[in-house]
């Protein structure tokens, strides 16, 4: 009760305004404490969406990692297949084609040798044969490097033996030619060399066919891998899509729940604040009336009694002067009590209306704060219910208090406009501005907003182009005549 009283006094007199929220635990009213507990209950950790979202993220990441691993494996398999099989096969086939080309060149050379239409001895072809032999050896050496893994020992042996026998026959043929036995040499070509060349050519052709078959097999396997990867891609995409949809739905649901909780919390907070304000006002009104009615009557009676008692004491008696002194003290106390009563709740608000209160309050503030206040009043005044007027009065109090304490301005403008559809109150200064000192006045501003909201009106904190702050409260006219708690 002490805290509440102090708080109410501060709000009332405009000194050290503090907020309600920071002092929630100090409230003696039951409802706010219950609300606070209710809010805590609704935000328990086991109902937070974070766990669900984290789970979704982990599942998605795990799926991506798993899929990347799978794809890497498949690509590695493809690369291995292509480099180890397809590429080597291609290189092997190129070398085999080179061998085939050399064998064909040998066949053509042997044909020319047998045609015997050149004016040169058969030995003239030896350089040509040597060139082909060197190229053939090189081609076979390279071919063996790329094909050794798949060539059977029998195949390698057959090719090597056949070639060795062929070149041995070639050497013997040229030896015959060098000895002048051209006919024997030609017979050797016809009977042996051409047949060996044909056999070699067939063997190479067979290897080429095998290579082709291997290439077809490799192509088939590559195709299967691609099909498998494609299928997995579809599955992965579907699963990812489902995961994304589930996560999205869950996020929407969680967000909606969060927003609903926030809205409820805000509603509760607003209701709490308004109840608090109402409680303050009723308390202050009560104290004000008590002071005015009870203590005022008592002090008035004391004053009257002292005055009568003094009449019974002879003039010049010391008692008479003491009674007068006590009477003056009582009168002074009575004045103070009335002033305090007026300050806690202007009685004239209910009796003379808001307009009169403002008329009374402006000079008071000017006296107390030494602010120069330009007060403008416009429009046709209309009656404002006291329960409404008190909130407008409190806003005026807080706004002027802010100007005096924080804006650094020495002048303020107060405008009270009786508009056809609303009452508008403006308090403007040319001080540091709202932003500069807003942080220090958070609670006061909250109180003003709550009062505006309580009235169903609107309050704006503006920054005029000339600088400073403009607080504008607008209350619909239909509210002004009604009673607000």
């Amino acid at each position, binding site marked *: 009760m002490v805290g509440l009283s102090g708080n109410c006094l501060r709000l009332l007199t405009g000194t050290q305004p503090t907020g309600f929220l920071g002092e929630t635990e100090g409230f003696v009213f039951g409802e706010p404490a219950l609300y606070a507990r209710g809010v805590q209950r609704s935000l328990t950790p086991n109902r937070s969406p974070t766990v669900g979202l984290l789970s979704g993220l982990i599942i998605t990441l795990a799926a991506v990692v798993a899929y990347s691993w799978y794809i890497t494996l498949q690509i590695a398999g493809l690369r291995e297949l292509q480099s180890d099989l397809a590429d080597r096969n291609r290189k092997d086939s190129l070398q085999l084609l080179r061998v085939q080309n050399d064998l064909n*060149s040998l066949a*053509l*050379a042997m044909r*020319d040798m047998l045609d015997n239409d*050149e*004016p*040169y*001895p058969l*030995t*003239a*072809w030896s*350089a*040509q044969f040597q*060139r082909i032999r060197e*190229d053939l050896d090189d081609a076979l050496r390279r071919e063996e490097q790329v094909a050794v893994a798949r060539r059977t020992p029998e195949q390698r042996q057959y090719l090597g033996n056949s070639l060795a026998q062929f070149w041995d026959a070639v050497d013997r043929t040229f030896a015959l030619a060098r000895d002048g036995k051209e006919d024997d040499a030609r017979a050797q070509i016809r009977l042996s060399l051409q047949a060996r060349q044909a056999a070699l050519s067939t063997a190479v052709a067979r290897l080429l066919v095998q290579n082709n078959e291997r290439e077809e097999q490799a192509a088939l396997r590559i195709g299967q891998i691609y099909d498998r990867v494609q299928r997995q891609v579809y599955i992965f995409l579907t699963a990812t899509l489902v995961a994304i949809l589930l996560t999205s739905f869950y996020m929407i649901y969680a967000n909606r729940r969060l927003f609903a909780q926030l809205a409820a919390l805000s509603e509760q907070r607003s209701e709490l604040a308004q109840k608090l304000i109402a409680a303050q006002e009723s308390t202050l009104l009560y104290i004000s009336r008590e002071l005015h009615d009870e203590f005022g009557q008592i002090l008035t009676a004391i004053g009257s009694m002292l005055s009568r008692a003094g009449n019974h004491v002879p003039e010049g008696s010391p008692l008479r002067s003491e009674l007068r002194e006590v009477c003056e003290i009582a009168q002074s106390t009575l004045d103070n009590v009335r002033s305090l009563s007026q300050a806690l709740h202007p009685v004239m608000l209910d009796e003379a209306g808001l307009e009169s209160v403002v008329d009374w309050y402006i000079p008071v503030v000017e006296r107390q704060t030494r602010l120069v206040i330009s007060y403008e009043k416009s429009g046709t005044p209309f009656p404002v219910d006291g329960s409404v007027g008190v909130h407008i009065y409190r806003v005026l109090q807080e706004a002027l208090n802010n100007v005096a304490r924080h804006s650094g301005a020495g002048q303020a403008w107060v405008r009270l406009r009786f508009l056809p559809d609303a009452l508008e109150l403006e308090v403007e200064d040319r001080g540091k501005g709202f932003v500069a000192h807003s942080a220090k006045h958070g609670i006061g501003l909250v109180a003003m907003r709550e009062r505006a909201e309580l009235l169903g009106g609107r309050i704006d904190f503006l920054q005029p182009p000339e600088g400073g702050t403009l607080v504008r409260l607008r209350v619909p006219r239909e509210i002004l005549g009604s009673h607000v708690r």
Partner: protein
Amino acid sequence: MNRRSFLLALAGLASTPGLRLVNALAAPAPRTSTLSLRLVDVTSQAGIQFHHNSGAYGGKFLPETLGSGCAFLDYDRDGWQDILLVNGMDWPGHKRQRSTLRLYRNNRDGSFSDVTRKAGLDVEMYGMGVAVGDYNNDGFPDILITCVGQNRLFRNTGKGTFVDVTRSSGLAARQSFSTSALWFDFDRDGLLDLFVCNYVKWSPEHDVFCSLDGKHKSYCTPEAYRGETCWLFRNRGNGTFEDVTATSGIFDSSSKSLGVAMLDYDQDGWPDLLVANDTQPNKLYRNMRNGTFKDAAVDAGIAFSAEGKARAGMGVDAADFDNSGTSGVAITNFDNEMIGLYGALGNGTYEDVAMQAGVGPISKNTLGFGCVFLDADLDGALDLLVANGHIDETVRNIRGNVGYAQPPQLFLNSGKRTFRDVAAEVGDGFSQPKVGRGLAYGDFDRDGDVDILITTNNGAGFLFRNDQLAGNRSIRFHLVGTSSNRDAIGATVRIFHDGSSQSRLVRGGSSYLSQSELPVTFGLGKRDRIDRVVIQWPNGKIEEYKNLAAGRAYECIEAKGITPLSGF
């Protein structure tokens, strides 16, 4: 596109006259020249009236598309370059005219006189190419005419006439379809030997019927015929030659050779040979210094294109075009195959730099034949000149951007291994499309720069005078061998100036069916002298002369010193 695919494509398309108009419109407009040279067509002014007779009558014989060659030579040894133009003839049974080669004597005033008959050369033959060399070292250049059938060797009598010594020299024993040839001293015995390229085994009697539409005969591709070996004849020194084709390792029955160039690719002082083959791998015959050769083309990276394909090699030349001291190589090929421009890597291998050098892309739509390295603008960097012309008159019907007649290309060397075709800027007459074949250069007007001779298939011969516009200077050397062959073929001349050097090889042959002059010309730009010249004679001996003035020619006689000539 190789020749086979080209001809197959030809079969599938009808004539499209509209393409001619499109191509004409697409032809580059003549540009105002900012070059330092101009090539002026002086053919008529010089009195050269030559028309090549391919003998074409409709029989579509293979040799008709290939001739013919030309040469600059100083046959009368008066110091002025004369001109020889090879000719074909009508085929047996289709005689319509008499046609012979033409020898034009230089009148020393910019004009020439036809001395064919007087010189005893008005002999009918189906000539293809020419090789000029003083094989008997008598001081007068002799002439070999390669032919379809019997090649002819004409010995220069020294009295302005020639004598046909084919039979007595022993060359009559060989007949084929010869193309390019060159004289060189492969065994360094001081006597010029003879290398002859042969194309395929062809004769009118064994002509193959080829057709694109199944009805009408067309020109066959070389694949339709067997290859033919090149020949190497060793000069015995007694006026006769020994066929050493077989023993020297030159023999290769699969070759289909069209061009040959001499070079020293391994820098051992012994002449090697590069043979351009059509649809067959090129051959680089490395001189083994023992009378034999070994083909090193595959190892050297010059046998095939960069893609490993045997291109349709036509003409070939080798020279130190990047002034590195080592010969690079240019080989002309079929259209869509680009010119092969091989730069020496210095370790006996070559790299095709045609694309990087800017020669490749621009030669994709041309079919090149004759090609020579020459310093056309005398700036000290060898340029590349190419004679172009297709083999099929109807080529434009299937390839709108390829014509039968094609402009020559003059690739100016920037000195940084890049080239730019300036043919359209050096003179309108020069860039006129021609069915170019033979190509040779020589300083016929003795003004210090090299002039150009171009022959066309079944068309005229063209003489272009080179006029220097920027005052670039040159220095020329006439080499005379004493213990080496008298023409000094195989000698290397290297000049040094301002910390840089240039080198030339005295060589016959090169290009396509043709031979350029033997004196060597160095462009010097604005320089007025050179620091020194080093001559390595064919026998290996080296001579050096210092501080020579530019703007003139020098006669260098082996072991006898150097003599400045008055002018060039």
